[in-house]
């Protein structure tokens, strides 16, 4: 049995002189051998083997999770997943509201960078099969309604700044979304939000960043179509195991048509 490993995930610590000194430890995202013990500001994860079982524990804020896994030879995979599962999985849509209104010139194609919330998925991996055992998030949770109560959709809500380059973020809390806005109309268009079918998310990560790429094709003054692109933002990024892949759910329509305003 390998020795119990203690992981601290702090990226940097401020020294007595107030300057940040990098203290890089083993990253959270990726495969971990069991036994495992990870503690970080805001949460802790442990997996302790006992005979033919593994006891998984996780604490995040007031929430505590304990599960018994009937497995003998397994690893834990921890990676970012679609931010749709906490506090309750009630919607497959993510609405990102821009902190400033965007005016897009006619027939233009522009790239902007937004942020999106991260949810951390924990999978048990044995015999090449993955099973999701836990999902948690460190960000503020909120839902909203896109459209009106009759024909609208409930969405996970996130407010993001609009950046021209990828912002530096805590990869355990926020990811970078590169959004390509394509205005196919011959008029100026104002955009304040983007709604995505989050089950079709293609999340990639490395030690410093969690990222996604998406497009928003504006096809009318109040209509747009959003879609995700399965491509990493930087080289050598790892593709996340998303929940809908782990659950073997077929995503029939990855695009989302924003018919109720943009």
């Amino acid at each position, binding site marked *: 049995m390998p020795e119990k490993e203690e992981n601290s995930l702090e990226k940097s610590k401020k020294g007595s002189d107030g300057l940040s000194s990098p203290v890089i430890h083993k990253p959270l995202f990726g495969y971990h051998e069991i036994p495992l013990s990870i503690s970080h500001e805001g949460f802790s994860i442990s997996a302790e083997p006992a005979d033919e079982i593994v006891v998984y524990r996780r604490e995040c804020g007031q929430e505590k999770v304990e599960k018994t896994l009937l497995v003998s030879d397994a690893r834990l995979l921890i990676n970012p997943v679609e931010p749709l599962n906490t*506090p*309750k999985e*009630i*919607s497959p849509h993510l609405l990102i509201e821009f902190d400033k209104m965007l005016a897009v010139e006619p027939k233009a194609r522009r790239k902007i960078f937004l942020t999106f919330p991260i949810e951390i998925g924990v999978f048990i991996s044995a015999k090449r099969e993955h099973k999701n055992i836990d999902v948690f998030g460190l960000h503020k*949770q*909120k*839902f*909203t*309604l*896109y459209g009106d*109560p*009759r024909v*609208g*959709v*409930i969405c996970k*809500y996130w407010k993001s700044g609009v950046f021209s380059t990828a912002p530096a973020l805590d990869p355990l809390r926020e990811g970078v979304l590169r959004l390509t806005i394509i205005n196919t109309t011959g008029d100026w268009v104002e955009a304040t939000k983007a709604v995505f079918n989050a089950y079709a998310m293609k999340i990639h990560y490395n030690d410093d960043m969690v990222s996604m790429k998406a497009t928003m094709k504006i096809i009318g003054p109040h209509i747009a179509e959003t879609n995700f692109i399965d491509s990493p933002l930087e080289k050598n990024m790892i593709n996340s195991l998303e929940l809908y892949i782990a*659950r073997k*759910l*077929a995503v029939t329509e990855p695009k989302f048509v924003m018919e109720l305003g943009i």
Partner: protein
Amino acid sequence: MILNKVIYADVTILDLIIVICVFIVAIFIAKTLSLYLRRSLKDKFRADKLEILTKVIYYGIIGVAVIIAFPILGINPSGLLVAGGIAGIIIGFASQSIVGNLISGLFLMIERPIKMGNAVQIGEYSGMVEDIRIISTTLRTWDGLYVRIPNEKVFSNSITNYVANVARRFGYVVGIRYSDDADQAISIMKRLIEEHPLALKNPPPQLFVDNLGDNAVNITVRMWAPVSEWYGLRMEMLWKIKKTLEENGIEIAFPQRTVWFANELNKREIKDPDT
């Protein structure tokens, strides 16, 4: 041989056995297939759509079996349609309520004001729609009772579908004392709503002093929630509001009356015998 014995016209016992076998095989295939579909598509289809799909497949297979079996039994399907039409009219007159229920059932399936799994109120009954059949609709009331309502009654009654829209609003009237700061109370309640993930960001909540009541300053609090979550949120938020207001020194007012005496009262002090 006994199998070749003619029962009527050209139909033999063997034909009858073949027909019975066709129906047994058809029922077996229909049940197995619908059970398989129900299990494998459970997570991928909505319950009401899955139920319709499995029913269509089940009765479709039975229908095919009937089409196969009729010629073996010497029954001409085209003749049956004519006979069925006439019989339909006769049966229709003889059993108006059943036909009424049947037609209402068809209209319910076309108009679809309710779906399986919806929380509804139909006339005096309130509960979850368990099944919509061709003649009747069954509900499971909130206290777990099974209620069968004829479709004619469902169709002619007013129907309230609590989950037809994706979000719904609910609210409270919170009465605070005249001595308390209403602005502070509104700000506290706004923060509580903002912090709760299931209280929707948009449509925004509404909080305002609605009226100056006899005993309290009445603040109206309204918020929207996903339709599946509103009842839990409604129960949670009311108590949270009450506790948080009291923690901040704001109290829920109760009926009170100030009495003024026209003349000064004759007071008599009573001393405590223990002191």
